[in-house]
């Protein structure tokens, strides 16, 4: 029998199986915590930091990623406080300034309440969420791609830059890449990047409808993990 624990997420008592993450527990009951690097059934690494929540304990709260936080009896989690919204918006702003050519990231930015981008756009092709690398490594056990380099030079690469024989050609890396779906108007050219504000999802992003669903499109291989829509 599955052992369960009861915790409180945003004031709602939630039952979750022991050992699951707070993010999974929240998504299961329909509480949307924005996330990018999380893929169901893969080990979470806490790379994108979008799924941050406040873990309130003894009156003091700690900001931590919900994907790496395991549920515990009596936990008190706040996913949508003023502080979390500001922090999350800033991270989403950093991401969208880095890679505006992704529908997924544009959606997340809208969901997190990004109204303007205060940094020059960079228009890069990868935000290093690591979804492809982890899927390749953990699901297929292929290890055909991995991260190379450090800091600014870190990037996803085949071993020694050549596609290895043990790459199964499964295409999961593309399927799970948040960059695989471009914003509605097609890819933006350099110098023409903008924050996606044209689509209808913007309508639900009114300040009084906090955390409303914008139907994030996280690549063709994976839509929202919320079971209830």
């Amino acid at each position, binding site marked *: 029998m599955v052992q369960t624990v009861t915790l409180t997420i945003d004031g709602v008592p939630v039952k979750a199986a022991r050992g699951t993450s707070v993010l999974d527990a929240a998504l299961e009951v329909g509480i949307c915590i924005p996330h990018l690097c999380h893929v169901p059934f893969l080990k979470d690494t806490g790379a994108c930091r979008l799924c941050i929540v406040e873990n309130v304990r003894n009156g003091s709260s700690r*900001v931590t990623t919900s994907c790496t*936080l395991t549920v515990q009896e009596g936990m008190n989690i706040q996913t949508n406080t003023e502080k979390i919204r500001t*922090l999350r918006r800033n*991270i989403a702003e950093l991401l969208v300034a880095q890679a505006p050519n992704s529908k997924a990231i544009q959606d997340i930015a809208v969901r997190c309440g990004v109204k303007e981008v205060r940094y020059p756009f960079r228009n890069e092709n990868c935000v290093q969420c690591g979804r492809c690398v982890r899927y390749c490594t953990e699901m297929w056990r292929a290890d055909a791609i991995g991260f190379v380099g450090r800091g600014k030079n870190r990037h996803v690469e085949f071993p020694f830059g050549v596609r290895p024989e043990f790459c199964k050609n499964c295409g999961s890396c593309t399927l799970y890449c948040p960059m695989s779906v471009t914003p509605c108007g097609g890819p933006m050219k350099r110098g023409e990047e903008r924050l996606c504000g044209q689509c209808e999802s913007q309508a639900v992003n009114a300040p009084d409808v906090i955390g409303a669903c914008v139907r994030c499109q996280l690549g063709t291989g994976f839509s929202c993990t919320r079971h209830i829509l």
Partner: protein
Amino acid sequence: MRRLNHSSELENYRRELLEERKGGATTIIIPNGTCCQAAGSPAVIKALLQEIARQGVDKNVQVHLTGCHGFCEQEPMILFEPGNVIYCRVTPGDARDIVARTVKEGEILERLLYTDPVTGKKAKTETEIPFYQAQDRQLLQYNKWVDPRSIKDYIAIGGYRALVKTLDSISPKTVIEEVRSSGLRGRGGGGFPTGRKWAEARSATGDEKYVICNADEGDPGAYMDRCLLEANPHLVIEGMMIGAWAVGASKGYIYVRNEYPLAVQHARLAVKQARELGLLGDNILGSSFFFDIEVARGGGAFVCGESTALMASLEGKVGEPRPKDIHTVKEGLWNRPSVLNNVETWANVPSIILNGSGWFASKGTKGSKGTKIFALTGQVKNTGLVEIAMGTTLNDIVFRIGGGPKDGKAIKAVQTGGPSGGCLPVSKFDLPVDFDSLYEAGSMMGSGGMVVMDEGTCMVDVAKYFLKFLQDESCGKCVPCRIGVDRMLEIVTDITEGRGTREQISLLEELADTVRETSLCGLGKTAPNPVLSTLRYFAEEYFAHVDEKKCPAGVCRELIHYDILDEKCTGCGVCLKACPHGAIRGEKKKVHVIESQLCLKCGICVTECKFDAIAVG
């Protein structure tokens, strides 16, 4: 080499060694650590040995090579025992006089004595030097007596006595209790109570437990750990053994960065010697305790000083941190309970066991006990390693020990804690140096780097330097640290190059806060500290860069220009010859002019001009 099979045998061995060493021969102690070698000690040693052989005094003197003593400013040094006479900044050319006059006749060479830069007085012996007087050298005091390549030296000064005491009479629980009540906190920067860490590791379940020594010291300007491991590796090993006994570990690792070849070499040699003597391995000193140490080299990533990244690196993986929702004392190296402590923390353990927790707790402040080594560098007269009791004020460190500003310019700030720390202004110099007060002031103790800065330093430029460092050294795993620090650098670069706006400063603050709150590991969480602390204490400098497009300290090249002052210029032509860009023109005996289009603001003319005729504005 003999093998010690019982704890009493160590005491007998020590007695034999002391007996052997009796006799009145003069000992010439020459520090030969990495810093000393850089200052030229190998040439001095070679010349001295040749001279001793040539003048035939090799029977009466012993030359003793040790690790660095800490006073790096005055190296290469020579110390004579008995007598405690010290010679500073010795050159190979002095060797002849030293042997002929000091060793043979006992005469003291005035010209080689230390001159106090503050009072101008000469100091004959080591104890007279104010740099040493103001310190409380508990860990560094041994460096003088120990040749790091000889376990005999360490045993002769009473080494491994704490281990014997532990194995003979103290239970692991009591060891932990002792460390806990001593109030020892992690010296690597975080300041986590060591006793609590050990207790948690002891109560954790695992088929094997590990103790790890973190010697991956990467802060710019900090070298305490290198010096300790280089000069006295057995002290660290003894501390690790006591820790292993306390938590029930059977394997230890010393993770040294590869940039410290001498520390790697000495640590390896020390482990080998301890193993041969029966102090490491199975049945240590005849007891049932077994423990061994391996020395691992780091690949040179700053982030590998972070505990989880270090463990990943030890496992042979990429050195990237992982979330610490489960602590490393429960699941660390190879998912087994692991205790990771800094070199200095381990080195403090033997004396706590020997002298008792009360002795250790008697030093320091309420929250921080004991002594701490700092690497004092920058614009002060005396640079080097400084060991002080916690709670000593910054004033004492900078002015009493450091001797005040080097070039006569007023001191402006001190940067503590390396890239994770912050800059504290002179108005905060009465602050007692301990974990909590530094943290409250917006800086942190860090591993103990202390860079003193004077009026010629631009604080925005300092923030830029540290951001550049962190951007290079970030592992790149999480978004706030990889992109956030990069964007912060972008903004600060804009400010130093005259493109900054007031909005950017508030954006910088907001971003710094986001990076601090949301980063994955300690490196990212503390990365904004240089920016936040300079913004807090030196906001006017940021505003000067943004509003007036001026750099008050005259450092940021895009915001300054050089002018030749008509009334001071004598037309000597020195600057004209020195300028590599041909930007200065003028005739002999007439006032010269700088062509601003050609000037690349290298500042060579300023240093060359003998009349102070070139103004930076």
